[in-house]
C-alpha cells in the first residue's frame, strides 16, 4: 500500500517536472511600490500554471527614474536577460526601439478594448511597444472623519481652500498628536515631483512645461503663482521634510494617521483601506484642487507591459503580457489592489465599483489626465524632467524664488532643446 502510494507520487513528480522541462522560464521586471510585487506575482503565477511555463519575478527599484536607469543600461547593452518589462507611460519614446511590436502577437480585438489614448501613447513609429497594464492619475486623499470633525462638508476645490482646511485641522490635531501635518505629497527631487508640479501648474492654467508644438512655455505668470502657492505651504501645512518624500514616504505618514490630506496615485487606496490600516473606513478620494480660474489637473501616469526585443522567448513573453493585461486580470487587480484598469468597460463593472467606488466618481479625472511632455521632447524627456523637478525642488526648499527659478529653467530648457527636440 505504502509502496504503491510512493510510486504514484513519484510518477506524478516526474510528470510534473517533465511538464516543467517543456516550458520556458521568463524573467519579468514588474513592480515594487505598495503591494506591486505580490500582485504581479499572483498574475504571473496564474499564467505560468495555465501554460506550463515558469516566471521569475525580479526585485526592481521603487522609484521610476531608478528603474529607467537600470533598464536603459540593460537595453543599451542589448541584453536579453529580462523578457518582460513594466514600463512607465513616459518611456515608449525613450526605449521604444528596443521593444517588440506587440501587434504581431496580440489580436487587434484585444488591443482595441483599451483606452485609445494610451494605445496611441504606446505606439512609436507604427510599432505598439507596450500593452496598457494599469493607468494612473494623481488624486487627492482626505480623511472623511477629520473633515466632519472640523465642520467641512466636502473636500477642497481650490489650493487655497486646501491650505486653509489643512491649517485648521493641523492646529486642532496637534494638541493630541504632535506629529500631525496637514498635507503630504511627493517633494523629493525625482520624476514624482515632476508629476506633482505639473498638476499645480496646469491647474492654475499654466500649461504643460513644453507645449505640444515644442515651444517652452513654463515661464509664465500662472506657473509662478502656482509655485508661490505651494511654496507657502511648505513648513506651514506641509512638513518641510516633504522634500525628502517619494510615494511611499508620503503614504507612510498618511496611513499612520498623521496627515489630513495626501496627493498620491490610486494604488494607495486599497492599502489605506486594508484590514490592519489605522485609517480604515476614514479614507476619501477626490479630484485634486484647482488654482484660481483654473480647473483641476491630474498627471497621467500608468504602466505598460513590454517585451524585450532581445528576449529569447518573445512568443511566450507576449503571451504573458496578453494574460496580464486581459480584462479578467485587470479586474482582479482592480478589486484586490485598486489598480486602475485601462479597459473602459471595467469602470462600469459593479464588482469593481463596489471595491473601489472612486473609479466611478473620478472616471473623468482618469480619462482627462494631463500628459507630461514626453512625446514632444522624445529622447530628451529625461533631461527636461530633471531640469524641471530640480527647479521646483529649489523653490520648495526655499533656495530660489518661483519667478527666478522658472526664468532660469526656461533658459536651461532652451539649452537642452538646442536645435530641436
Amino acid at each position, binding site marked *: 500500500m505504502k509502496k504503491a502510494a510512493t510510486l504514484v507520487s513519484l510518477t506524478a513528480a516526474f510528470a510534473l517536472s517533465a511538464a516543467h522541462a517543456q516550458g520556458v522560464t521568463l524573467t519579468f521586471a514588474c513592480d515594487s511600490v505598495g503591494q506591486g510585487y505580490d500582485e504581479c506575482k499572483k498574475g504571473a503565477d496564474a499564467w505560468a500554471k495555465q501554460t506550463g511555463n515558469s516566471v521569475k519575478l525580479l526585485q526592481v527599484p521603487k522609484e521610476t527614474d531608478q528603474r529607467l536607469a537600470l533598464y*536603459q543600461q540593460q537595453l543599451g547593452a542589448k541584453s536579453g536577460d529580462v523578457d518582460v518589462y513594466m514600463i512607465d507611460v513616459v518611456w515608449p519614446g525613450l526605449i521604444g526601439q528596443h521593444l517588440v511590436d506587440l501587434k504581431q502577437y496580440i489580436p487587434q480585438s484585444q488591443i482595441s478594448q483599451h483606452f485609445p489614448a494610451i494605445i496611441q501613447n504606446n505606439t512609436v513609429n507604427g510599432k505598439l511597444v507596450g500593452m496598457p497594464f494599469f493607468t494612473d492619475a494623481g488624486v487627492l486623499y482626505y480623511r472623511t472623519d477629520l473633515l466632519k470633525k472640523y465642520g467641512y462638508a466636502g473636500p477642497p476645490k481650490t489650493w487655497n481652500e486646501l491650505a486653509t482646511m489643512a491649517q485648521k485641522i493641523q492646529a486642532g490635531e496637534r494638541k493630541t498628536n504632535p506629529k500631525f501635518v496637514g498635507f503630504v505629497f511627493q517633494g523629493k*527631487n525625482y520624476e514624482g515631483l515632476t508629476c506633482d508640479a505639473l498638476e499645480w501648474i496646469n491647474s492654475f492654467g499654466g500649461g504643460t512645461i513644453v507645449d505640444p508644438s515644442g515651444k517652452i512655455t513654463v515661464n509664465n505668470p500662472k506657473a509662478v503663482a502656482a509655485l508661490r502657492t505651494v511654496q507657502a505651504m511648505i513648513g506651514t501645512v506641509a512638513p*518641510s*521634510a516633504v522634500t*525628502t518624500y517619494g510615494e511611499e*514616504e508620503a503614504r507612510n505618514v498618511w496611513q499612520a494617521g498623521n496627515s489630513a490630506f495626501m496627493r498620491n496615485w490610486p494604488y494607495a487606496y486599497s492599502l489605506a483601506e486594508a484590514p490592519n490600516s489605522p485609517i480604515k473606513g476614514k479614507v476619501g478620494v477626490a479630484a485634486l484642487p484647482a488654482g484660481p480660474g483654473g480647473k483641476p489637473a491630474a498627471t497621467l501616469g500608468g504602466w505598460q507591459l513590454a517585451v524585450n526585443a532581445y528576449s529569447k522567448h518573445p512568443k511566450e513573453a507576449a503571451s504573458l503580457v496578453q494574460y496580464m493585461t486581459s480584462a479578467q486580470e485587470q479586474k482582479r487587480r482592480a478589486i484586490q489592489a485598486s489598480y486602475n484598469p485601462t479597459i473602459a468597460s471595467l469602470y462600469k463593472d459593479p464588482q469593481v465599483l463596489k471595491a473601489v467606488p472612486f473609479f466611478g466618481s473620478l472616471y473623468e479625472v482618469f480619462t482627462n489626465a494631463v500628459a507630461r511632455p514626453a512625446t514632444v521632447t522624445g529622447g530628451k524627456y*529625461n533631461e527636461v524632467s530633471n531640469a524641471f523637478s530640480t527647479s521646483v525642488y529649489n523653490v520648495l526648499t*526655499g533656495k530660489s524664488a518661483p519667478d527666478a527659478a522658472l526664468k532660469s529653467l526656461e533658459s536651461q530648457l532652451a539649452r537642452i532643446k538646442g536645435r530641436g527636440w
Partner: protein
Amino acid sequence: MTTTPTSTRPAVRRSRGLQASRTRVALLLLVPMLLVLAAVAGYPLLRTIYLSFTEYNILQDPAPKWIGLGNYWFTTDEGVGLGVLQTPEWWQSVWNTVRFTVGSVLLETMLGLAFALIINSKIKGRGLLRTAILVPWAIPTVVSAQMWNWMYNDSFGIISQWGQRLGLLQTGQSFLSNPDTAMAALIAVDVWKTTPFMALLLLAGLQTIPSDMYEAADVDGASPWTQFWRLTLPLLTPALLVALIFRTLDALRVFDMPYIVKGNAPETMTMSIYARQQLILNSQFGFGSAISVMIFLIIMIFTAIYVTSLRVKFD
C-alpha cells in the same frame, strides 16, 4: 622610494649581461599583469577620454560623433554655454564634493586619532574595544545609509525626535530636508562609518613607534602632552599622510551614501552623482564622459599634491 642612479651604476657595469637578462625575465613576468591592467584600467580610461570628445546618446545615436572639445566648452550663436565647464550644476557639485571631503576627512582624522590613542594605551578590555569600533565599518554602506535615512526621517526617526524635543527642529522638519544642514547630516553619517577605518590605520602607525622612546621621554620628565606633540605626532606623520590620501580620494568620488540618502537633491549632489545622472539617466555618454574626465583630473591634482608633500616629508 626610488633608488638613486649612483648606487646602481657600478653594479650595472660589472655584470651587464646578467643584469640585462634579469631585466628581461622581470619584464616577461610583468607582462601578464600589465596586460590585465591595460584591459581593466587602461582601456576604459582611454575609451572614456575618447567618448568625452564625442556626442553620443547611447539609446539613440548609432555611433559616437566627434565634436572635439564641445562637451567641455561650447557657446552657441545665441550665447548659451553648453560645455560642462559652463554648467552651474557641475560647479555646484564640485563645491558640494569639496565641502563633503574637507568636513568628513578633517573630523575622521581627529576622531580616528583619538580612538587610536585610546586603543593603543594599555587599558582593560582593549581587545573588545578594538572589535567594537569596527562594527560601523563592517556594515555595508547601502545598509547603513538606509539605516541613517530612517533615523533622520522627520516623522518616525529618532534623530528628528531628539531634535524636536531639544527645540532644534519644528514638527515635520528634519536635518536632511533643510538644505542648509543636509550636508552636515551626510558628513555625520560618513564620519560614523569611516572613523573606525581611520583609527585602524593610525593604530598600525602608533604600534611601529618603539616604546623605549616613551620610556626615555618619561625619564626626561616630559609630560604626556609634550610627548604627544614632540614624539607621537612627528613619528606618526607618514601613517597619517597615507590615511589622509586614502580618505581624501575616497571622499572625492563618494556616490553611494549621499545618493541613497538624498538622491538627486542639488544641495548634496556630488560630482559622481552628477556624472551618473548625465551618463546613466540621461544616457548622454559624451557629456557624461567629459564629466568623468573632469573628476579624474581633479582627483589626479589632489593625488599629485599629496604625493609631492609625502616625498618632502620623507627626505
